[in-house]
């Protein structure tokens, strides 16, 4: 009975929305398996596909993904690999090319972005009709675990600097746990050229300048348990360069 009612309601509202979750991976064999399990656990009555963009990880990430395809089906988990490590920004556009959803969700594979928040992204979008829903760590209900004082300090400094200079209208610029309307992501991603953290910042700042409706939901961020971070190096210098670049071009 209940199911029938639900279906009728859905027919009234039109076609059920389809979501494509793009997950870039590089050496995440354990994390991707756990992530896929958790996504299926938390998105029970949502139509979605997972698109894994793996950059030729030497640790056997792709073998694990193929095993997962056998469990969950090749139509639910798509492996769209690239031959070698080519960076995050292009990984998203590569995944986007193969996505068939009305909405695109972008998240990291390392479990710092927990799938239990996916329903709140989807709900927020449905309630507000937003073009972008972005996860923020810096509001009530959000938070970070596993950062030392230095990491917190740079994060705060970077955030205050960007807020004062760019007036972006969102509280968490470098978080990359986001839901996009498909057309919006296609529009924004093509005008972005930065790499690393700056790429996430550029995406949201450009979207905000273009006047897209952006909403935020609180998320928590637990530093990765398995594997190692691929960003790093001269992060601060890159960040400052990115800030200047955005000041001049947006």
């Amino acid at each position, binding site marked *: 009975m209940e199911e029938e009612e639900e279906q009728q309601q859905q027919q009234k509202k039109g076609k059920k929305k389809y979501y494509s979750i793009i997950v870039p991976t590089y050496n995440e064999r*354990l994390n991707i*398996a*756990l992530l896929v*399990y*958790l996504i299926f656990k938390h998105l029970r009555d949502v139509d979605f596909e997972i698109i894994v963009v793996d950059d030729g990880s030497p640790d056997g990430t792709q073998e*694990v993904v193929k*095993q*997962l395809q056998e*469990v969950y089906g090749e139509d639910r988990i798509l492996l769209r690999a690239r031959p070698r490590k080519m960076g995050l920004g292009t990984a998203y556009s590569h995944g986007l090319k193969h996505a068939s959803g009305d909405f695109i969700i972008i998240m990291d594979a390392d*479990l710092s972005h*927990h799938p239990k928040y996916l329903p709140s992204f989807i709900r927020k979008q449905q309630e507000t009709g937003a073009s972008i829903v972005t996860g923020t*760590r*810096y*509001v*009530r209900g*959000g*938070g*970070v*675990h*596993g950062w030392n*004082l230095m990491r*917190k*300090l740079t994060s*705060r*400094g970077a*955030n*205050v*600097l960007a807020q*004062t*200079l*760019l*007036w972006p209208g969102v509280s968490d610029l470098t978080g990359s746990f986001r839901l996009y309307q498909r057309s919006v992501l296609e529009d924004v991603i093509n005008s972005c050229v930065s790499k690393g953290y700056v790429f996430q910042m550029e995406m949201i700042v450009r979207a905000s*300048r273009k006047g897209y409706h952006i909403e935020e939901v609180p998320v*928590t*961020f*637990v530093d990765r*348990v*398995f594997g190692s971070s691929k960003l790093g190096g001269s992060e601060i210098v890159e960040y400052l360069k990115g800030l200047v670049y*955005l*000041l*001049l*071009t*947006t």
Partner: protein
Amino acid sequence: MKHILKIMALVVAISAFWIGLLRTSIVSDSYAWLLPVYLVLSLGCYGLLMVGVGLMLFPTCPQEAVLLQQDIAEGKEFLKSKGIDVASD
């Protein structure tokens, strides 16, 4: 409009106001000359304060780490039952 232009416009507006103050001597000259210094200082203080306050109120979530460990254990169990190799190295 490029964002840098907005900021420059703001700077120009403030400078114009300042030069106006210098010329009309509504406030004493020596005081007016110091105003830009005060402005820069207060901007710096604002930045430091924001970073400091942000650091003190930095939202943390230790309980989330515990929950994640439970999810990981649960996930490993399931994956193992499906014959997926999840031994961590």
